[in-house]
């Protein structure tokens, strides 16, 4: 948030709504969180099928995902998701920050994440047993930091600190692995979109300094 917006909110006490371009980022993160959290059903697939393209890497990735969504079959996606992320004890991929950064789950990256989540006033919800440093969860946090869906929108520099600490170190590598995973079919396109989003985020944060 810029200095002039800060002054305005103190004067009026009004809750400022983030700019449309910032809210769009939350949308992209939420899309990733949805697809990476569970295999999409027909309703979600139909919705994704309506994404229209733009002449940019992100646009092309979205178009490819939309096309894949229109062809996808929910039952097959359930199998693909299981093979990729669940398996028997372990899927083809282990989409957790601790695993990517140390080779093991429940390591220091998770401890650091829990501390940062606590400072943000967030904790794991009731009935959620997976570690907080999964890719879907992290995307959900980013969306919430941007649009305030869990508490309030946080300033850009705080979003950036979260992104730099918990996503930047491993997310692109994960999406690259997903893109080339043997079991991946529909999820190849999710991975391509994920890479485009992470890249866009890194570049956009550079601009805000």
């Amino acid at each position, binding site marked *: 948030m*810029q*200095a*002039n917006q800060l002054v305005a*909110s*103190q004067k009026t006490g009004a*809750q400022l*709504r983030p*700019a449309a*371009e*910032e809210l*769009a*980022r*939350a*949308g992209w993160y*939420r*899309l990733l969180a*949805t697809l990476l*959290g*569970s295999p999409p059903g027909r*309703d*979600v697939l139909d*919705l994704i099928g*309506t*994404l*229209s*393209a*733009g*002449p*940019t890497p*992100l*646009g092309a990735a*979205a*178009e490819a995902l939309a096309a894949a969504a229109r062809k996808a079959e929910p039952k097959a996606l359930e199998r693909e998701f299981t093979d990729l992320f669940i398996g028997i004890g372990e899927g083809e991929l282990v989409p957790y920050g601790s695993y990517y950064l140390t080779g093991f789950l429940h390591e220091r990256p998770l401890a650091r994440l829990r501390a940062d*989540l*606590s400072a*943000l*006033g*967030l*904790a*794991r*919800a009731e009935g*959620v047993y997976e570690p*907080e440093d999964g890719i*879907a*969860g992290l995307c959900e*946090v980013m969306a*919430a930091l941007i*649009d*305030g*869906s*869990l*508490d*309030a*929108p946080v300033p850009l520099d705080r979003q950036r600190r979260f992104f730099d600490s918990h996503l930047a170190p491993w997310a692109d590598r994960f999406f690259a692995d997903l893109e080339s995973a043997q079991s991946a079919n529909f999820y190849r396109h999710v991975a391509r979109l994920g890479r485009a989003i992470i890249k*866009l985020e890194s*570049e*956009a944060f550079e*601009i*805000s*300094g």
Partner: protein
Amino acid sequence: MRSDGKRTRGQDGLHRRDFLKTATGGTAAGVVTAVLAGGTAPAEAAAEPAAGRSRYRETEHVRRAYRLARF
């Protein structure tokens, strides 16, 4: 532009928004993501996401402290 040639924070904000607009290339993700989120405004935050429950919840005491410390 400041005399030392550095961008002011206000200018960075506009530059960033232009960058974001250009990079998404007008891809209309708005409807899709709005439905997935169950509403994009903070006021609608109470609505559960269409695609499933949140993995997170707010912690009450920190929430109060955070509101007080927000700006």
